[in-house]
């Protein structure tokens, strides 16, 4: 299994097709509109409390830029610090290697189950499936991940993976599935979020208490001290990081920060951008192992899986600064309408549209750079100032170029662009085409709009209405009405036209 097979979900349709299905789901759209609207307002309110928010963002972007330019140096320092503190560092070039390492580590403990803290990196590598193949059961312990796991579903949001599920659906999943996985849902479970959370507490408590091995991701790791950080809300993270004897943390290589002191910047930005809180309920920091407190064995798996390739692209590499807050998803007009599944990737939304094609190669996710209106809301919201529109345009160019290379004949789009170039460079040709378009356009338009067209125009027109061309072009109108006569020759200074 290659890394690409897990980052993008094989067999899922390209974005335009998946989006069409998602848009037809009115319940999904209502869930998403409500959820993203709530979190947008909360984020704006807490970001506005810090009058130097823009300086903080700039600082974070600079720290990330500086780190990435010397990533090898920082990774080696991290390895040294973690080892000195009693941890063991492993390196994985791709998903398969990371899965092999984690599976072997779990096997060495003799255990057949692990508890998991929500982690994008382990989702990206398909760790749960790899462990299942080895006869090891992985229990997700984040409430939303639990909902997704019990429902045999896929995550649709980085922070709230079950954002597409309403409370009554969640109750049904709990009633139906909890008994299969452990303690069943309580009798008479209602669909009140409080009751549902209580059901999850009871269901998972026994798993936490008996767990001998935990697997986590990491939000940050400080190279100078070897300190690893997990940011969470529910306490499931603390349970996994504290109770088991063995802790295995899988971390993307881009998560390293040069120093412990850098954490203050990100601990101010992340909760405010992510959940719209001044601080999330729980943040755990640990450095190697501590005598008599918490796991006795700590393994840190450093994962590349497409990150070094992304790093090689000087425009695209900024996507590696992402701290997985998901603010860009919540402000994106496209995400709000299609939801996360349409992106067909572990990383949905605007950041997914720039990260996924880079991690797996543009040709394996060619529709994603186009899954955006380039409105720029994501850039404004990003706490580390990733210029997502810039990277999108860059990747679009790559996708077009890749398509051109693979074809003997030019695409209709390329031909159209070439023709447009010829027309726009000659006023005479432009005028002729405009006259023709006015005539033709008005013939096929209905109520002033041109809808779906056949043939080579189908792909463009199928998703857009085009206003019918005006009867007369601006140039023709100008010539007809503004050709100066002796009476209306402009006399004011501003209006003076030199002829």
């Amino acid at each position, binding site marked *: 299994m290659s890394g690409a097979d897990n980052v993008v979900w094989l067999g899922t349709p390209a974005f335009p097709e998946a989006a069409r299905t998602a848009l037809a789901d009115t319940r999904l759209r209502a869930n998403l509109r409500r*959820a993203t609207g709530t979190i947008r307002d909360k984020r704006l309110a807490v970001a506005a409390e810090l009058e130097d928010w823009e300086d*903080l963002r700039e600082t974070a972007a600079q720290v990330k830029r500086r780190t990435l330019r010397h990533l090898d140096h920082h990774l080696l320092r991290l390895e040294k610090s973690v080892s000195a503190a009693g941890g063991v560092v492993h390196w994985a070039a791709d998903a398969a290697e990371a899965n092999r390492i984690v599976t072997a580590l779990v096997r060495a403990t003799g255990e057949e189950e692990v508890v998991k803290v929500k982690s994008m990196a382990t989702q990206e590598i398909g760790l749960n499936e790899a462990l299942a193949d080895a006869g090891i059961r992985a229990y997700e312990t984040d409430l939303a991940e639990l909902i997704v796991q019990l429902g045999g579903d896929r995550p649709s949001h980085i922070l709230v993976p079950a954002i597409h599920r309403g409370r009554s659906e969640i109750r049904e999943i709990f009633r139906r599935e909890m008994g299969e996985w452990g303690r069943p849902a309580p009798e008479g479970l209602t669909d009140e979020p409080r009751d549902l959370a209580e059901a999850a507490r009871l269901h998972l*408590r026994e798993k936490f208490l008996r767990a001998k091995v935990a697997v986590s991701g990491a939000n940050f790791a400080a190279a100078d001290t070897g300190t690893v950080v997990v940011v969470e809300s529910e306490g499931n993270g603390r349970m996994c990081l504290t109770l088991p004897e063995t802790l295995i943390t899988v971390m993307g290589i881009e998560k390293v920060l040069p120093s412990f002191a850098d954490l203050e910047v990100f601990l101010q930005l992340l909760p405010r951008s992510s959940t719209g809180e001044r*601080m999330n309920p729980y943040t755990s920091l640990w450095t190697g192992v501590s005598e008599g*407190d918490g796991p006795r064995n700590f393994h840190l798996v450093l994962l590349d899986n497409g990150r070094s390739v992304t790093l090689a692209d000087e425009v695209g590499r900024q996507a590696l600064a992402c701290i997985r807050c998901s603010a860009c998803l919540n402000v994106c007009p496209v995400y709000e309408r299609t939801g996360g599944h349409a992106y067909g990737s572990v990383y949905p939304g605007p950041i997914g549209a720039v990260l996924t094609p880079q991690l797996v190669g543009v040709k394996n996710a060619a529709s994603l750079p186009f899954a955006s209106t380039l409105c720029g809301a994501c850039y404004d919201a990003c706490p580390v100032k990733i210029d997502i529109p810039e990277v999108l345009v860059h990747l679009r160019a790559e996708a077009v170029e890749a398509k051109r290379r693979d074809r003997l004949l030019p695409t209709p789009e390329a031909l159209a662009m070439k023709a447009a170039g010829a027309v726009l460079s000659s006023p005479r040709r432009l005028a002729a085409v405009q006259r023709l378009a006015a005539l033709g356009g008005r013939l096929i338009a209905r109520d002033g709009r041109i809808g779906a067209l056949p043939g080579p125009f189908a792909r463009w027109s199928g998703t857009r209405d085009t206003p019918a061309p005006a009867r007369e072009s601006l140039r023709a109108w100008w010539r007809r009405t503004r050709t100066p006569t002796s009476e209306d020759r402009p006399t004011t200074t501003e209006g003076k036209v030199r002829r």
Partner: protein
Amino acid sequence: MNGRETVLSAVRAALSGVPGSEDPDDTPVSSGRRADHAGPDVVGLFAERAAEYRARVVRVPASGAAAAVARALARTGARSVVVPPGLPEGLVPEGEWSLLTDVPPLSVGQLDAADAVVTTVAVAIAVTGTVILDHGPGQGRRVLTLLPDQHICVVRADRIAPDVPEAMGLLDPDQPLTLISGPSATSDIELDRVEGVHGPRTLDIVVLEDG
């Protein structure tokens, strides 16, 4: 080639555009941001912000600490209270509850059955209403503050830092550290915030005003 060499050489190849003469510290990092966002009343702000995240906050003179702890325990009807090593003598008074010391270490089952735990804190943060444990004397192992359903934190006013940067500067990275801002919570169901999932569902904070 092993994973380590593969990853490192791929990273180095990707960074071939970075001049060899450039030092890791050369890329500038601006310092335009502020060191803190707290006003003059740091203690008041801490109490207000912690309460906003549904911690129960009381402010008492240092002499009233034990009485405030007793009131918090009585309110929830706690019958057993975990007392970490090094907790100041007399902070948990006699009452309707039994005291569990962690010497020798309590089992996970004993902790899960305990009703409450009382600790001091290493540092607190006013702007975010956060308490930070470094799990030293008076705080104990991480699991002590995780399994009992009520956590009572006693915070000396002089331990409250105005904001995140100063607080982080006061911490020892070699210690395990836990930042706690209100009781555990989730917004995973329709983004509706619910307090109390896996960690303690009740967080009491007793602020001792005169150090």
